[in-house]
């Protein structure tokens, strides 16, 4: 009767990609911000758990947006 659900495929969940250390660094320097100045997401977030993201990782989020078509945003994974 029950089965495991894949949250990553849900309509409301945009595409998340865990960035490598180098990619994260490049993104941050391009935006001129520190890691902690990004929006956060908890490592206990269902999506972070599904991706295996660890605290300190930067996650790239690709959202479908009616104004921009597709827009890219980032979140820092924090422990909690």
């Amino acid at each position, binding site marked *: 009767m029950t089965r495991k*659900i894949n949250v990553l495929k849900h309509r409301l969940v945009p595409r998340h990609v865990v960035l490598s250390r180098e990619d994260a660094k490049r993104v941050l320097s391009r935006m001129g911000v520190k890691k902690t100045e990004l929006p956060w997401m908890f490592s206990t977030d269902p999506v972070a758990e599904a991706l295996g993201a660890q605290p300190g990782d930067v996650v790239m989020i690709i959202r479908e*947006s009616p*104004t921009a078509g597709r827009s890219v945003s980032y979140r820092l994974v924090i422990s909690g």
Partner: protein
Amino acid sequence: MARPVSEKVLWSLVEQYYDVLPERLRRELYEKILEAGLTKSEAVEVIEEAVRRYKASLVAPGEAVGMVAAQSLGEPATQMTLRTFHFAGVRELNVTLGLPRMIEIVDVRREPSTPIMEIYLEPELAKDEKAALRIASEIELTTVENVTRSVMLDYYEYAVVLELDPDVMENRGVTLDDVVKALNRVKGRRGRVEVQGENTVVVYLGVEDIPKLRRLHDRILQLRIKGIKGIRHAIVKPVRDDEGNIVEYMIMTEGSNLQAVLSLEGIDPERTTTNNILEVYEVLGIEAARAAIIEEIKKVLDEHGLDVDYRHIMMVADTMTYTGKVRQVGRHGVAGEKSSVLARASFEVTVKNLVEAAMRGEEDPLRGVIENIIVGNKPVPIGTGAVKLKMRYEFPVAVANKGGEE
């Protein structure tokens, strides 16, 4: 010589603005230029003009975007107050809309006043009304209370006598066996369940204890026979396309339990949603919660024919979710977690905020807008006031001396 620009060349022309223009604009430029059949030099001109106008339309640094968003959502909300507690009926389901719903969303209530789920079915079952009805009756919470006509306490025998309602049972697809099975779960070690006649079930407590009997009575009534906790009612609704043809069947429920419904067999776990934002957050994460907030606010505004720019709604959703959890727009969230004492005090419960800050020995560096308005500082750090002057403006010595002599 005026040949239209080729697709490949145009694509590279547009894509060199990858970092500047948003995806939608690039796509539109590409499509429209191809359609118009412009030459390469014309295409370059059009693209450059688009970039120039795009840059001119960007929000200026220091612009009070939060304030503008608040006003842009607040003004239409005053229009809605006239239609407070307006319900749009979806057959027999009520949906809270208008201002009450708006308040609910930004307050992040644990449960909306009318929690609703929209459950879609797997592609193979989507067109099958019978399957939809079957799933609907499976998830609808049926308790013993729902299927009994009367309940009696027998104080001589220490028993609960249930008279079942066969019509309701058939309606809900519950058999006598289901009821007995469920009752067996709560009867206790010394209890006994006995079917008497066609529609009567007696549960003997087996102990001579009246308070225990009463507790058993209460537990029996709330006992779940089948269904999902929280789903009070489920109806099947056809989804129609623009011509009115039925595309598929979906289930709308009163009451919500996203976690349990998503893991059900037969439903489409990718499209099924709830209007309970906190549930979305717990099951699908912060980004889904952000999307749900936007969707829900948009739904309320659309219902009232109010056209608020999508970006203002995104602003609200981003502010509510950037800390990784969903914060309400109010005293216990966005406004209450401001770092500045004066900013917090200026929102609500002024005295309490000031007293507590004083006891903790808080300092206020006067970096925000409200703080500086309160103390009468000039300039307030917003717009042109948000930038600092980096010029050194000492007078050259000679000029300064001359000025002194006169």
